[in-house]
């Protein structure tokens, strides 16, 4: 069972590593969207600093959202998902492996690059630190919850935007707490509350989302 988890994880990572462009892309999308805002809003440096946590978080969220398809869609379309569902191993384990792969390929790079963008948007050092923590706790939740959404829409043609409709409302709490934590940190106040909330949500998502997602797959992938 652990082996099945590991093999699937490796397979998904390898698939992404083969397309080098794909690997860098959520990252580049993230950076691009973050840069769009100063260009569009033309803020004063202070205004920029106020916007920064929100903008960075929204961009991270959109970058994850856009790459969610990666989790199951391709597998559904080429039939591999059938094979996964016919695996003697519990589907939950396999879903978890795919979600982990997705996070390693999208969430983690965002966490790593975020400090740089924070500096670009003239965030303070403490705010940058909290930004990293909040993303570290928040992005796995985005992947986990996203997986449910993808499972539900996997059989829908052009499901991309339907997916966002389903998923974005679920993402909003994460967004609010994540951005708020950074915002609060940049005014020098403590943020343990927000980070605790994010951890709690992460624990919840980790225990429920793979299950929900695998149930959803059994329902929708029937063709």
């Amino acid at each position, binding site marked *: 069972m652990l082996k099945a988890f590991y093999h699937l994880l490796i397979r998904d990572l390898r698939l992404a590593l083969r*397309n*080098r*462009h794909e690997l*860098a*892309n959520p990252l*580049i999308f993230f950076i*691009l969207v973050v*840069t769009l805002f*100063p*260009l569009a809003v*033309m*803020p*004063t*440096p202070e*205004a*920029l600093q106020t916007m920064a946590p929100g903008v960075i978080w929204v961009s991270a969220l959109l970058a994850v959202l856009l790459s969610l398809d990666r989790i199951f869609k391709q597998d559904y379309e080429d039939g591999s998902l059938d094979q996964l569902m016919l695996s003697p191993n519990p589907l939950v384990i396999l879903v978890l492996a795919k979600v982990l792969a997705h996070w390693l390929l999208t969430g983690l790079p965002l966490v790593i690059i975020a400090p740089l963008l924070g*500096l*670009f948007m*003239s965030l303070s050092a403490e705010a940058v630190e909290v930004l990293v923590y909040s993303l570290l706790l928040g992005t796995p939740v985005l992947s986990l919850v996203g997986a449910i959404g993808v499972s539900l829409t996997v059989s829908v043609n052009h499901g991309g935007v339907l997916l966002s409709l389903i998923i974005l409302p679920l993402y909003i709490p994460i967004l609010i707490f994540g951005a708020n934590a950074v915002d609060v940190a940049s005014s020098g106040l403590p943020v343990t509350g927000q980070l605790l909330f994010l951890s709690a949500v992460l624990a919840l998502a980790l225990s429920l989302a793979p299950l929900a997602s695998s149930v959803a797959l059994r329902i929708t992938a029937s063709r």
Partner: protein
Amino acid sequence: MWNWIQRFSSPKHFYSMSVPLIKWFAIAALVIGLYGLYLGLFVAPTDYKQGDSYRIIFIHVPAAWLAMFIYMVMAVSAGIGIIWRIRLADMVAAASAPIGASFTFLALVTGSLWGKPMWGTYWIWDARLTSMLILLFLYLGYMALQSAIDDQRSADKASGLLAIVGAVNIPIIHYSVEWWNTLHQGASVAKFDAPSIHIDMLIPLLLMAVAFKLFYATMVLVRTRNESLYRDRNRRWVREIVEKL
């Protein structure tokens, strides 16, 4: 005439012909570059306002100029490759992109490093900085597309087309960003105030610019040679070279 161009631009011919060029370009780049650096670092006077930190200009400005220059070269040779179907031109374009991206990056990094002492921050959303960042993305897009398409011929033509579209857009980008900046009240805190160039600074600056261009010429020739070897790996002339090794 046409035949002559065809022959002259065949990878095989290029491969043998480029050796002396590379040698001379490399030597010239090294000599001029070292002399320029010497003048820049030791002869040019210390700036009364910025102290010695301004000396990064001798890297920063040539890198920025070269970055823009390379994009032009890339777009033009991509155009030649598409219109006249000259494979060598495609190779030059493909070989230029990573060099151009590197110099764009270098300009950004040196600029940021310079920005810290000058403006107190690594980055401001200034017109020139922004359009440089966009240029970096244009390069990255070209390279990503080039690597994402498997069929070499399609990859060349597709990314070449992108380079041309990008070139059409560069004036628009430049104009819009420039214009955007003039309306940009906030950034005036950190005005882009160029030091009035002293002749002792100008000469090393120009020397460095020439050296950078020569360095690019060297690199692009080397990279194009490698490209041509790789792309023609199944053709006879490459096989013959390999057998000789």
